[in-house]
């Protein structure tokens, strides 16, 4: 099970990083989203994997999973939304100001090898 989880998070990180390195804003935002998923899962599994043992105190339960990473990740998920929104808004403004959604502000039609002026 551990290897399945590790591979899963690794795949998410790899996809996220590749998209993060793209030249246009939208794929970068998608990459950030994937990286956020990966990071949240990473922090979450630091509390180990315990299926069927939710951290809700009851007399019937004999064991609980670690609640602390869950609390950390819960706020991280919401803040991740705030971050994504901020990036999206920046992307709008950048496109409106530069006429292009290239992360380096390169105008469309310019060759990919030339430097931005």
């Amino acid at each position, binding site marked *: *099970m*551990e290897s*399945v989880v*590790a*591979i*899963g998070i*690794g*795949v*998410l*990180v*790899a*996809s*996220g*990083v*590749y998209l*993060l*390195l*793209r*030249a246009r804003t*939208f*794929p970068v*935002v*998608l990459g950030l*989203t*994937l990286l956020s*998923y990966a990071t*949240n899962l990473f922090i979450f*599994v630091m509390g*180990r994997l315990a*299926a*069927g043992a*939710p*951290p*809700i*105190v009851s007399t019937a339960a004999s064991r*609980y*999973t*670690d609640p*602390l990473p869950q*609390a950390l*990740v*819960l*706020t991280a*998920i*919401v*803040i991740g*939304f*705030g971050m994504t929104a*901020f990036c*999206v*808004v920046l992307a*709008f*403004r950048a*496109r*409106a100001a530069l006429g292009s*959604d290239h992360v*380096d502000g390169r105008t469309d039609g310019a060759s*990919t090898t030339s*430097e*931005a002026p």
Partner: protein
Amino acid sequence: MAPSLAAIVSLPLIAAYLPVAAARKGRVFAAWTAAAVLASPLAIAAALGPHVLAGNVPEARWMWLPGAGLDLSLRLDGLALLFVVLILGIGLLIVLYAAYYLAEDDAIGRFFAYVLLFAGAMLGVVLADNALLLVVFWELTSLSSFLLIGFWNDRSDARRGARMALAITGAGGLCLLAGVLLAGHVAGTYELSQIVRRGAAIRESPLYVPILTLVLLGAFTKSAQVPFHFWLPQAMAAPTPVSAYLHSATMVKAGVFLLARFYPALSGTDAWFYTVTTVGAVTLVFAAGTALFQHDLKGLLAYSTISHLGLITLLFGLDTPLSAVAAVFHIINHALFKASLFMAAGIIDHETGSRDMRKLNGLWKYMPYTATLAMVAASSMAGVPLLNGFLSKEMFFSEALLLERGGWMEVAIPLAAGIGGMLGIAYSVRFAHDVFFNGEPVGLPRTPHEPPRWMKVPVEVLVAMCLLVGVAPVYTVRPLLDVAARATLGDGLPAYSLAIWHGFSLPLLMSMLATVGGIAIYFSLQRFYRLHEHVHSPLTAASAYDALLDGTIRFAAIVTRAVENGSLQRYVAWVVAAALALGVAPFVASGYAPGPTTTAATPVAVVGLLLLFAASAGTVVLHRERLAALVMSGVVGLVCVLFFAYFAAPDLALTQVAVEAVTIMLLLLALHYLPQRTPAESSVSRKLRDAALAVAAGGGVAALVYAVLTRPFESISDFYLENSVSQAGGRNVVNVILVDFRGFDTFGEIIVLAIAALGIHAVLAGFAGAGRDDDRAWAADRHPLMLRVLTSVLLPLMLLVSIYIFLRGHDRPGGGFIAGLVTGIALILLYAAHGVAWTASRLRVDYQRTIGIGVLVAGATGIASWWFGQPFLTSAFGHPHLPLLGEVPLASAMAFDLGVYLTVVGVVMLVLARLGELSAAPAANASAP
């Protein structure tokens, strides 16, 4: 006693602004204000003076940072008293002089403010008993002298001179700090009076040489000793009153003051003797020789100052009690004659419009009175009998001749003294002869005449003191010199005589030879070398400094150009690569050691993994078709939801599914304005590079996760599980952690959210949108009827659900975050069904205000616990039975959760509604009936 010591230092610093205010009422008023500010500490010092002269040492001490050994401790010993008198006395004369010297359009208030700041810093240096405090004031002198030298900040040479002085003396100050820290470490205290007493321990410590080197670097940079001398001539770009102040009694004297202060602690070794003596002797001779070839009047005085500082340094280096007395004496004498000479040079510059000695000739006819004053001061500088300069020069010669260290120094030092003395006389003669005689003026901008009456007064006072000290030293300077020298030496004062006539002796013979030689040198240079026709710029050290500076700047530019090419894409790649390197390093250093696998993979998990793999690969592969990629990333999010649900995290699953919904809406809105497709523009090599980085990062994280998961596990969470019910009255431990145990973290996090939302609001303020991308078909029916009907049913239901989720959050999965997100989704649905204009006219909620109220509610809940004498965010709880709802877990934490709820609703709505408005703006006009 203690307050008066503090007043001496703090009055000029605190009152530094007064002249600026006073300058609005005129120049004279500003000058009087500055003079009054300087006079009051001088009066205090005068009142304390007899006490100090009688051998007492007033002290004052306040705790400041005791942990760092930094106390505000002040101490007025004899040496400090001498400097206080010099700093304030000459400062007063400078103020009077500057009032006449500065032009009408110079900001005189600002000038006096700088002078006061500088005087305060100098007073701090000389009065500080704590070595760290001394360094603090030392740096203040560097900073305030920077302001003074660069006073005419529209002139490039002034700016350059100020920068250079700051760089050199500031660097020296850092060395001094390091030296003081080491010395304090060895002595076990930073109090100078204690350090001095533990001199033996410092001299025997293995750290002695580093301490000595660092402290001497501080002193030599400040006192412009070779090879750090070059900043001083550059500082001549300052107004002449500044030069007269900084280079006679204050700034450069801080360096030799430091030598005097550390003399009992650091002297008495070969390292001290050879280093200090050599540097002093080289500076003495080199600067005297250079001074002779300067054509600029102030340049001559600048190099002469360096030379005299070399002489004082040399005297400290000789390391005999008498030489130290002579050094202190020469500090006084040099201050008196050099201040008057600079002022005289300023008068000449002021009244003729030139400082060039090739033009200034024969001024005796035009300004005989000034000429007399200047020539008396120059004679003192040359060491003519019956003037103060003669006395200390005789002492210097005698000490040089009596040197008993053996070896070549016994020859070299008297030789250096003789040559230095001879050159000193040569340039003094040049100052007198070349300016006031030697033919007629050549092409002066103005016809020379005597200056205003009061401009001469400071010069008269100083020249009179040169004479008084020269004629009757015992009755004028002796008491002050005694206490100052005793404070310098630390223990015991040698018998010394200040008699004018010692009979025919070797020093007198040397003096006479030097005088004859010096006069001969000057006149033969004029006659045979044609002095005026040669320009020497001995700025080798300055050009080395410039080269170093230019080289640094060029190197920085090369690095910047290589690294910072303006491409964010490249920066991100660097960040990823750097993170990779940092992440790999521990694996390499301590090996990769995962433990055994403990749980077997279930088929469900494998299916989940395959789904995740397919969805993320799909996002990457389809990323140029943006809508498809977005759908794929949504699938990834849903897999995460399932993951959380499977691994016993119901709260996370709920949160993730709600955030997933709003994120998809957000990104769909984003696609509204952004191109629908990404052009293919990455080169194959870039794709390969990125893929390599991505695979390495993914592989690294996977390896890390695997290693962590398979190793032993200890958690601090047992505390939360055990105390959740008993202390916080909640069964849902995740929610209890969020709103109670770690409520302060959550408070910070909702503030972050609020800031992000307000940031988005600010970025979009006044933004009308870039127009949507019309390269794909849009639905004709903007607000479908089905959706509207469904919404009217769903909306109340969803709001009810969100209330239910909110209320039960403390005991079962739910809480403010999730409830807030659900409410947000419900309201967004309303917008989607009816349009922004329709909804906004009915739902009059200011979302910024909602966010603010949310944060305030959460904060107020925390503060409320103060009323009960509890720490911030302490909660109380109970389980009241409410009609219809049954038993409800009611805790004060719920009010906090309400704050969280409001903030989250506000953030979601502010972001989405604001973005929605952008799309609605043109459409609303089009569909208006």
